């Protein structure tokens, strides 16, 4: 657990970066500090490992105040990831990852063996071990940054805009992988970001800060969307709050899933016409995995891949209301494809079905 108690950072020129911050980041959870620039989120983060010293107030690490600790020893207990990775340009990737264990007195040999395991864990091939940072792309460097922070298996991790310097596609991948990793390792993490979508996607709890270094609201992502504390939070969380909050509502079997007649690739136009409901028929492969929608009227001979409309996004039956609704809205037939955990077809839903389920249970259980 990381706890801020009345923490203030004021500079000699009178600017107050952080103003009486009280906050608790629970053990094993990912807490996100989010807010516009100048809200003191990065200052708050850096006060935890004392890269910046608080003017007043106390920060506790598992109930021990950090102020009395040796700063270097304190920092060695905390993994740290920054925006541009900040790798050591003169060290190979494997030595970059080994940094903290070696500092903590482990033998280089042992540290390297562990570093190689960690590299694999964050999705870096072993062939990168002997390379230098400049030989890696921004996204790969960021993976090294995460591996380096995890190398000494610290209980705590601080992440300062870890995914913001890479392009959106890579960012999405890194976020997904990081979530998966965190589910396995369960570190106590505080992450700073200016991107509210990232905060809502990754955070177990999100602290919204306002300019002047005050905490505006601390809540779970779904709570932020459904009950923002004030106008500032509502505004910062942004548009489409109702729709986005569905992303935190599990479907949990409340939506009626209809049967859908299907044809396989290579089926005749006649069969497709017979099975079709309305203008469209769903096409699956031999393992009942949905491939796309075809219009029998336009078919010329049998059903081929090039006849398929691929605009629909299948939703998992275990997914959220948002995914289910999106499946329906994105499908050309307006029937959303629902699949099981193996990607095999269960049936289809319409937007009406989903909305009915939402209306029937206004207080659906939230996803997290």
């Amino acid at each position, binding site marked *: 657990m990381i706890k801020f108690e009345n923490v203030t950072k004021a500079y000699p020129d009178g600017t107050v970066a952080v103003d009486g911050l009280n906050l608790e980041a629970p053990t094993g959870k990912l807490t996100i500090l989010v807010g516009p620039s100048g809200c003191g989120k990065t200052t708050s983060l850096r006060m935890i*490992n004392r*890269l910046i010293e608080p003017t007043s107030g106390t920060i506790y690490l598992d109930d021990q105040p950090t102020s009395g600790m040796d700063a*270097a*020893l*304190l*920092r*060695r207990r*905390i993994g*740290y990831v*920054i*925006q*541009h*990775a*900040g*790798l*050591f*340009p*003169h*060290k*190979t990737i494997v030595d970059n990852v080994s*940094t*903290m264990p070696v*500092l903590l007195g482990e033998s280089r040999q042992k540290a390297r063996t562990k570093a190689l395991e960690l590299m694999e864990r964050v999705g870096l091939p072993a062939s990168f071990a002997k390379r*230098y*940072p*400049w030989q890696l792309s921004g996204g790969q460097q960021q993976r090294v940054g995460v591996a*380096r922070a995890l190398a000494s298996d610290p209980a705590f991790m*601080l992440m300062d805009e870890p995914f913001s310097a890479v392009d959106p596609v890579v960012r999405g991948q890194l976020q997904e992988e990081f979530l998966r990793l965190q589910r396995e390792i369960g570190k106590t993490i505080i992450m700073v970001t200016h991107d509210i979508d990232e905060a809502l996607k990754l955070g177990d709890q999100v602290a919204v800060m306002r300019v002047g270094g005050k905490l505006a609201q601390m809540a779970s992502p779904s709570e932020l969307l459904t009950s923002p504390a004030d106008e500032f939070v509502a505004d910062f969380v942004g548009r489409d709050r109702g729709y986005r909050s569905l992303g935190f509502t599990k479907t949990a079997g409340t939506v009626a899933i209809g049967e859908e007649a299907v044809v396989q690739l290579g089926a005749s136009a006649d069969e497709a016409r017979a099975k079709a409901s309305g203008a469209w028929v769903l096409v699956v492969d031999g393992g009942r995995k949905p491939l796309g929608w075809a219009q029998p009227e336009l078919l010329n001979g049998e059903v081929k891949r090039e006849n398929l409309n691929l605009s629909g996004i299948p939703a998992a039956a275990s997914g959220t209301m948002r995914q289910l609704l999106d499946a329906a809205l994105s499908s050309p037939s307006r029937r959303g494809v629902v699949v099981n955990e193996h990607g095999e077809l269960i049936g289809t839903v319409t937007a009406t079905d989903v909305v009915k389920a939402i209306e029937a249970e206004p207080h659906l259980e939230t996803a997290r």
Partner: protein
Amino acid sequence: MNFEWLGRQFDNIVFLLGWHVLLAVTPLILGLLIALPLGWWAHRSRRIYPLLVGVAGLLYTVPSLALFVLLPLVLGTKILDPLNIVAALTVYTVALLVRVVADALDSVPEDTVQAAKAMGYRGYQSLVKVELPVGVPVICAGLRVAAVSNVSLVSVAALLGIPQLGSLFTQGFQLRFYTPIIAGIVLCVVLAMILDGLIILLNRWLTPWTPKVVAS
């Protein structure tokens, strides 16, 4: 060119070359050792930087001959003592390298320094294990300038009668005989090129991590 003369003088020329190397390289090493802490100080303090770099620049403008003559008064050495030359050239090397070391440390990316601190490196560990190694290319570039400058400055000491390749110049002028002059110039140039090449090799050996581009 009188090659017969060169043949007869071979032993003497090698002796002069040896002294030249000693008088040029010793101050280079001493100067670097002194410039490292001074440069670090200039890098650390924004107020000290202009002061140190300014004083260093001023020192460099003192004519070498004047320094060779004045140093015995300061050091209490004899005017013909080669130590004067070593001390004078050390001053010039420090003057050149203080700025170089400060700039080398400044060249280390802020993210890297921050990361080192946040990983739990103490100040001196970060300096020795991260900042200096990353600053090596800049330091080596400065060393190359200082090395070449030292090789040429040493020859001025011939006017004081301290043996090194410059002695060939004075000898040639006195005898109105060009062979020693040409031999001296060629050897000075070759020596400068060899020192330069050695520093390039040293840089390459210390920085296997830099992007592979053609060394300038």
